[in-house]
């Protein structure tokens, strides 16, 4: 391929631009970057390679309009449309003289625009080979964005290019780092009023209406730039707040079975349950550092296994089993004050830990007010009052809403209930 000559046709180039164009050596257009909090996701906009030397700033300074070069943009309705000018379009203004590129103003060889292209390769030099010399221009790699986008609609609504692409008159080569919008740009207009705000307006969705999140480039996940929803290493625990605020938002990507998989206690993610979790779950359960009941709702999830394993005696209503498992002083004798290891303190700290082994009958055995007539398969009770201070202030309200919890310990004729009725 012969060298190309770049001339300036009928345009007058600003002096500053000439200086920059002539000072090509060492210039890397990829470093042109604008400051912003983040860049488009590499999953949504896959990495590009644009080995071209080009100056948007120079062209805009010449009052060349965007559509002069991106001439099909007003008809573009798909994100896969390339919308970039070919070399032929450049030659409309840049009179390229292949025979004598040095005569062009500024000088215009192939390597002027095609970075690293070496037009001098002829194949005659034994020290050079097609593998080591870039003997033809490197291709532009512009993978299709994993999005739906319609330039035509936006142009028809007379939205200026700069609203989305930013101020191009400071930019040389446009790339995903400096001139493609991030989602925050889109949602300034896509609010549901000016323009639709459904996620699937721009993101790809399947027939269920949910977004496609798996791409060859990786998994598309929120990073927490616009909502407090960054799917980071902590999100497994903190996602509850996001779901509570707006369940419908989660449903844009996640089908109901995604939630149910974990919340019905089947999936057991390895991040939560490391190897041999059964042997080591006791401390986390006691501290409530994991919210066990988020996934394991029913008491007998714990109870069945604890009974099978013998952690709970099959007849747990005998004092011997209580005393065998728990420390000395767990249950005090009649009339004596609780010791520091008494079970009441543990029950106050986290009674849900008690629920992993004990049913209410365990408590009734001592705390029921019905003495020897308490029923439930139990024969006697020690009538130890478990009510906290000031309980009387709220017992009336509780009794009016649900009397069952009261009647498990108190007989209907119990005078202590009179104040609650």
């Amino acid at each position, binding site marked *: 391929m012969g060298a190309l000559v770049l001339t300036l046709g009928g345009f007058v180039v600003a002096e500053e631009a000439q200086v920059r164009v002539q000072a090509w050596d060492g210039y890397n257009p990829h470093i042109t970057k604008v400051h912003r909090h983040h860049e488009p996701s590499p999953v949504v906009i896959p990495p590009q390679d644009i080995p071209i030397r080009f100056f948007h700033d120079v062209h805009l300074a010449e009052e060349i309009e965007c559509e002069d070069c991106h001439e099909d943009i007003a008809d573009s309705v798909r994100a896969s449309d390339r919308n970039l000018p070919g070399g032929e379009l450049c030659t409309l203004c840049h009179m390229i003289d292949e025979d004598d590129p040095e005569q062009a103003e500024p000088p215009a060889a192939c390597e002027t625009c095609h970075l690293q292209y070496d037009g001098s390769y002829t194949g005659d030099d034994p020290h050079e080979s097609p593998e080591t010399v870039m003997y033809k221009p490197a291709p532009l790699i512009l993978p299709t964005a994993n999005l739906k986008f319609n330039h035509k609609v936006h142009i028809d609504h007379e939205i200026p290019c700069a609203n989305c692409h930013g101020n191009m008159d400071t930019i040389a080569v446009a790339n995903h780092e400096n001139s493609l919008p991030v989602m925050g740009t889109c949602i300034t207009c896509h609010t549901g009023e000016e323009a639709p705000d459904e996620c699937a307006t721009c993101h790809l969705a399947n027939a269920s209406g949910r977004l496609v999140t798996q791409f060859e480039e990786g998994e598309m996940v929120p990073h927490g730039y616009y909502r407090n929803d960054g799917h980071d290493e902590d999100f497994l625990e903190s996602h509850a707040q996001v779901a509570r605020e707006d369940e419908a938002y989660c449903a844009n990507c996640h089908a109901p079975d995604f939630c149910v998989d974990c919340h019905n206690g089947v999936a057991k993610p390895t991040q939560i349950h490391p190897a041999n979790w059964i042997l080591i779950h006791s401390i986390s359960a006691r501290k409530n550092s994991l919210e066990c009941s988020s996934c394991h709702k029913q008491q007998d999830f714990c109870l069945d296994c604890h009974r*099978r394993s*013998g952690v709970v005696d099959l007849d747990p209503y005998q004092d011997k089993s209580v005393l065998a498992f728990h420390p000395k002083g767990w249950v005090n004798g009649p009339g004596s004050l609780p010791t520091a290891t008494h079970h009441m303190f543990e029950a106050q700290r986290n009674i849900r830990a008690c629920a992993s082994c004990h049913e209410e009958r365990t408590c009734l055995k001592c705390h029921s007010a019905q003495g020897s007539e308490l029923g439930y398969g139990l024969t006697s009770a020690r009538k130890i009052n478990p009510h906290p201070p000031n309980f009387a202030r709220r017992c009336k309200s509780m009794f009016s809403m649900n009397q069952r919890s009261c009647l498990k310990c108190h007989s209907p004729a119990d005078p202590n209930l009179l104040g609650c009725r």
Partner: protein
Amino acid sequence: MNYLPPGYALRVILLLMGIICASSVGIASAVEVQVTSRTMGDIYSHLRANWDDSDPIRRQRIHQLLGLNLFDLTSDKTNQVYFVSNLRIDADFGVSVAEQEQIEGLSQTDFALLYGYLNVHQWLGFLDIRLGRQYEIDAIDMVLYDGIRLRAYSPWYVGAEALAGLEATHRVGPTVSSHTLDGTPGGPLLLEGKYGEVEPRLVVGGGLFLHHLPYTQFDLSYRRIQTLGEGVDPEVLGKPGINQERFGVAASQRIMEGLFINAGASYDLFLGGVNELLAGIRYRPTFSLETEFKYHYLLPSFDADSIWNVFSWRPMDRTEQRVRIYGSEDFWVYGGAYQSFFRADDSVTEEDIDAVVEDLGFSMGSVLRIQPDSYVRTDLNTEFGYGGRQTFLDVGGGTTFRSGMFGLDGRLLMIFFEDEQQSRLNGTMLGAQVEGTWFFTKQGKLSLLVEEASSELQPHWLRVLAVLDFNFWM
């Protein structure tokens, strides 16, 4: 199978599914039909409390989830009307006949309709309707019910929601996240320790929410669950009443780029007080730095039938702080600390006890994502104080091969463990988890997880979990 969801509810759901399937036959070419299947099987055994390794508990379980989803039932490509459902069937072949005879309610098999509902989206441009077995996630927590939910969207950013139905409680489904106790209507065991009829419970609720505000989220919810009828044994247990009545609020606001605050609260009308508070702030002043603070207050509470609400009157609370430093979108390191507080009444004893027992924890780690789909992560987590001391040293990673056809994930773990109450558990444990995934078609994948752990109590512990997934669009 000894525990089914209420029979009428199951019949209604199956009838609904039948009608939808039948009505969709005529327009089958337009309706998008999705069938999903997940089969999980795991095998392991673990020691009983007598540490006799000749007679371990055997787990040989199979869980089968089966989903039938019908989209775009109106065949106009709007997907305005759709139906989704999921069934679960369990079998545990490790439960012996002897164990079943000894332990009331222990079963080998289980069955549940996890959800099955018809959804109408934006009917008349403003109303969402959901009919069938569904779970509701709102500012309070979560509840599963058979009924109807309406969500109306106004043009002024405010929406309203109302729901009504019968609570669906079964052993294997997601329902209210307060621990459901035996001896209460939600629990399968009656107080006497025998299985009995589950009483129907009415769920009604409603609330307000904000919509179309990208940087503001708000949900205000009310929920009441009430047992219907005269009760199982009104002479002894009393007439049934309200099982749960709560207000909840959850909100989040993006103050400026990188700064978020969120808060939530739940007020229990039965207990007459706040039973949960949540607050958080996250600030990312630059791309490289992010800080986060969270506070959580929780008063453990149960179904109002339970006497344990009387015992539970001291709150637990917890604060968490976390800092992340990002090197890039794909690499960050983090460090965090947390404190939990557990309270007890120290006025009832002459002995010296701590009215507040503290639990402290620290964590640090890093995450490196290697595009397109590989990652390496490390984590060191230690906590001590209430309940015992444990330290987890954790390294994991994963990648895919052959254009994503095969995936491999692994995790190595070292745990130092000191249980405050069960010193026999104390020691050091080494664990490894390796999971391979084969996407054998676009519609199916097979995963195999092998876990091996070694500790002083159990020199060798092995668990194998296999998961087979299918996802067909017909």
